[in-house]
């Protein structure tokens, strides 16, 4: 699945989207950590279909996934 990256995470990854295969959020986190330098030292949230999801959950590959660094609006 395509994963959208934003802000300092997109900067670290040097791209604003990566292709990841994962069947759950925990699997996705592991894959992202392997792909994006220093991700394990950054605070971030994962949004599934435009809502932040904190607990683990299954993914079927059709979801819109985004990795969100801390918000800074306003």
């Amino acid at each position: 699945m395509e994963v959208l990256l934003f802000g300092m995470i997109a900067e670290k990854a040097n791209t604003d989207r990566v292709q990841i295969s994962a069947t759950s959020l925990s699997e996705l986190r592991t894959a992202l950590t392997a792909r994006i330098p220093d991700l394990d030292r950054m605070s971030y949230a994962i949004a599934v279909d435009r809502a932040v999801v904190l607990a683990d959950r299954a993914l079927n590959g059709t979801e819109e996934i985004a990795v969100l660094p801390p918000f800074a609006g306003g």
Partner: protein
Amino acid sequence: MSEVRQHKVKDIFVDGPIDPSFVGTSIAKHATRQDIGAHEIFLGQIRADVVGADDRPPNNVVIAIEYTAYREMALETMTAIREEAFVRWPEMTCLHVHHSLGTIPVGQLCFMVFASSKHRQQAREAVAYVVDRIKSELPIFGKEIFVDNTHQWKRNT
């Protein structure tokens, strides 16, 4: 003011700074509303903050913030906040929200929340509520650009 209690997704984002004259024009558009007694407006302006970053000497000065957003999620979240605000403050007649994207220099405006109601209390409370929720819930990202052309990512606390 045609957006009153509509439930469609409105675009809050504008490219570049918000012009002060735009605020004046927005106010003027309410002159036809005979039921409004109070307007409350919040504006965010870019500060020349002095920041000590982890990997550089302190006392580096912000000259601009470059804003980006996860636009679709931000607009959906904003729509939900807007609908909640109209339920909580039923006397509110209008709520206008704008946020800048792109590079906004120090001294320029990047954010406007503008509510109107019959009496002052509801507009006042609604603006405070909406400003706070936008800052904590909208996926907007800010790169603080320093005078030496380095940068640091802003985070709301």
